[in-house]
Each structure stands twice: as structure tokens, then as C-alpha cells.
């Protein structure tokens, strides 16, 4: 079963339209949503959670329309927003007590375990937490009510590299149970590259691609060549390019690469940057 399906999802604001988006996240998988600031990642997450009204399309979680399954359906969804928003006067222990009154499946022992694992003090007030500690508390809450789907908006922002690595490991562990899934948006593409099975690129409100990560490596490559060599390539084959002091770096489908030219491996960040540049006019 698919954990999440977006069908022709659309949201219109003055001067910005998100979608129509079509996207599928199968159970057991992790999908990374990549996009520049203002691309629509947070809006997409808010639409999935029915926090804002959609102007068209449908959102299905585990086969059910989100509007019909919420609010009970949110028992199955663990969320970390880009800004973790607990009241500043609360302590982590109090957040746990509040959440026990919110979630039917609240697992107090799991929450306490995560507090210890993340080295979060139970009695310290939220306002005294560092940005990283706040994120960790948000993650601890999201993981402590037996959710089947995690929706994470920039969950590793503000974490140091060691903490990021630990958190990425926890998310990866989460999907060992094949009935669970993770949707994660982040600017830290290296985290997504490590973690995700699927990658979706959002650029100016449009989905540029949504593909299995390994397929992206197989399908796309970067050609590094001199300007004169680049001029001989069919412009229609170039998906994006960057000029450097040494020549040109061009993103191509491997099948479109001219014979005899060596197309190198492209990492996800480079793929996104070049595609976004290509989308703005080659």
C-alpha cells in the first residue's frame, strides 16, 4: 500500500501557484523533497496535513482521503515542522504529559528513551534549549506515538553533524518496518542522499521530477568539457549547465550523451542545481 499519494494537488496564492503535484510514497520507503526557498515544500506539507485549504486535487494517506481520515488519521502521522513550536515555558517532561493527553497511542517509555538518547534534560524549559535541542525534542515527540508516517520539514536544520548523523540513522531505522514511511524535506541534500529511496525536486511550485534515487544516478550524468566541445552538443539534450573557468559542466541524460564523451556521476545536489538552472532557461 502507498503511505502517501498526491493527485493533481494544487494551491494558489497571489503570485505563486503550487502544483498540480502528483507524487507517490510507497510504504517502507523514504522520499526526500528538495527545493530552494519558496519552492513550495512547506506548503506541500501543510496541504498533506490539511493545515491549509487546497484549491484542487487529492491527498491520500494509507489509501484514505486526508480530509476524511483526519483528525484521527493524524494519530498515524509524526510531524516535525521547520520550527518546533512548543510553549517556551514548558519542560520536556511537561511536553510528554501534554502529548499523553493528545495521542491515544502515546508511548511515554519511548519518549523518555528518546530524551535520554538525545541527551535532553527533562526539567529544563524549552526557551533555554538550543535550536538543535528544540529540533530533537520535536523529533522525540514525532517518534513516540507509534506513527506509521513521518512528515519532516527540515528536521536536521540546526543539528551538529554528529547529531544529524544520529537522527538520520533513526529515520532510516524507522522504515525497517515495511508498513512505515518517511517524507522529508531538507536543504541539507547530503542527508537526503544518505537517507532517501526516492527523490522529488520542487522548483517554483512545480514538481520537476520524482524518481528512485538509484535510477537518478543511472539516468543522469554530468559532462565536463571545453566550451568548444560543448558547442557541438545538441542543445535539446542539455538539461542544465554551469560555466566554470575550466569549461562547461552540463547535465545530460546518459543516453543523450555524445559518443566518445565521458559522462561522470552526478550527485543529487548537483543534479538539482543544474536542473533548476536549466528550468530557468538554458
Amino acid at each position, binding site marked *: 500500500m502507498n503511505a502517501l499519494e498526491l493527485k493533481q494537488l494544487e494551491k494558489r496564492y497571489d503570485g505563486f501557484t503550487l502544483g498540480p503535484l502528483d507524487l507517490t510514497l510507497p510504504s517502507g520507503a523514504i522520499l526526500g523533497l528538495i527545493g530552494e526557498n519558496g519552492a513550495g515544500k512547506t506548503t506541500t506539507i501543510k496541504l498533506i496535513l490539511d493545515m491549509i485549504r487546497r484549491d484542487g486535487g487529492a491527498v491520500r494517506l494509507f489509501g484514505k482521503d486526508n480530509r476524511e481520515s483526519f483528525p484521527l488519521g493524524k494519530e498515524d502521522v509524526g510531524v516535525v515542522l521547520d520550527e518546533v513550536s512548543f*510553549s517556551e515555558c514548558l519542560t520536556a517532561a511537561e511536553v510528554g504529559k501534554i502529548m499523553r493527553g493528545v495521542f491515544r497511542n502515546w508511548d511515554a517509555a519511548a519518549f523518555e528513551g528518546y530524551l535520554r538518547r538525545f541527551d535532553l534534560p527533562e526539567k529544563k524549559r524549552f526557551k533555554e534549549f538550543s535550536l538543535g535541542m528544540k529540533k530533537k525534542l520535536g523529533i522525540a515527540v514525532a517518534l513516540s506515538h507509534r506513527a506509521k508516517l513521518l512528515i519532516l520539514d527540515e528536521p536536521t536544520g540546526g543539528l551538529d553533524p554528529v547529531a544529524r548523523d544520529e537522527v538520520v540513522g533513526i529515520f532510516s531505522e524507522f522504515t525497517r518496518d515495511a508498513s512505515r514511511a518517511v517524507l522529508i524535506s531538507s536543504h541539507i541534500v547530503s542527508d537526503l542522499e544518505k537517507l532517501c529511496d526516492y527523490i522529488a525536486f520542487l522548483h517554483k511550485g512545480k514538481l520537476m521530477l520524482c524518481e528512485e534515487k538509484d535510477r537518478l544516478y543511472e539516468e543522469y550524468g554530468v559532462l565536463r568539457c571545453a566550451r568548444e566541445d560543448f558547442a557541438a552538443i545538441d542543445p535539446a539534450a542539455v538539461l542544465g549547465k554551469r560555466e566554470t573557468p575550466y569549461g562547461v559542466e552540463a547535465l545530460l541524460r546518459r543516453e543523450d550523451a555524445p559518443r566518445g564523451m565521458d559522462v561522470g556521476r552526478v550527485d543529487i545536489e548537483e543534479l538539482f542545481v543544474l536542473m533548476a538552472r536549466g528550468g530557468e532557461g538554458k
Partner: protein
Amino acid sequence: MKGLLLKDWYLILRYQRAFLIVVVAFSIGSATAGKAVSAFFAFYPCLMTGLMVPSLIAYDEKEKWNVYAQTLPLTRTQYVTGKYLMGLCIAAAMTVLCALIMLVDRAGLSGLSIRFVACLVMQALLLPFQLWLGAEKGRLLYGVVAGVFAVLAVGGWMSVDLGGDMPAVGGIPLALAAIVLYIASWRLSVALYQKREL
């Protein structure tokens, strides 16, 4: 819902201790001051308690809890209902406090129900604006209402003999009318809050 109420209770204990002290002090003062107590003195605790839930909403907005709450298995109706329940509990607690003080002081229960009514009506008027337009505009409206009230009180136009005009038993229909108004306000707030984009 239980979690929402618990969260608000923690906020009251942390952020609104000063409110609680002022309410207790003024309640003791007004309940033991005899019949011809100044209306401002008597109703100030009502104004303060009437401000507590709107302040909670302001904190929610400032700390973006109202946005985060939408990610939880809670409806907007539950969020609004939680605030109104808390407002009702606060009004009831203040009334019980005044009643206890009056009984200890053997002052009789005159004017008790009007305090309850004032607290409920204040919230019934403010909360729909707050939940619909946000804390800032709601606070502005509160300032206007409180300002008018203070001017009237300072000018002496509102000095009333609470004992003579408002017997405890006769005030019950008034209290019931306030509860009906409060329920109508709750329904309006639920409808308005559904439409608000956070």
C-alpha cells in the same frame, strides 16, 4: 482535548501568576468592602480573569503552538472548545473564590452572579474576534472595551450598590443568559476559526 487543557493550565501557572495574585487580592478587597463598593474595584477581577484566555491565545500565536496543534490529532473545534472550557473554569473559579470570601466575611452573596456574568460576557465578546482576526486585533478591541469601562468607573457613573441592585438569587437568570451568550460565542468562534488560514 485533555492535553490542550493541561497545556493551558501550565501556561497559566507560568505566565499568569500575576493575574492570579491580582484576582485574589481584588476579590478579597471587593468581597469584604461592604455594599457600596466601587464598581471598578468589584469588577477588576472580572476584567483580569476575562483577559486570561485571550492571553493564552496570544501566547499560542506568538509561540506558533496554534500552527503546531494542527499537526496533532485534534480538530480546530477542539482547539476552540478547549479555550472556552478554560474560560468557563476560570470564571467559575473566580466566582467560587468570591463566594468563599463573602461567606467567611459574612457579607452575604449579593452581587456574586454579576461577577460571573461580567467575566463570561467579556470573554464571549472578545474570543470570536481573537480567534478570527488574531491576538493583536483582539487585544486592541480589549483595550477599547477596558478603556471605556475604566473611564466610566473613574467618572463615577458606574458606582453601584451591588448589594441592593443585584441579589444573589435574582442574578441566576442573568448568569444563565450569560452562559447562553457564551455558548453562542463558542459556536461563532468555531465557525470563524475553521475559515482562518494559519
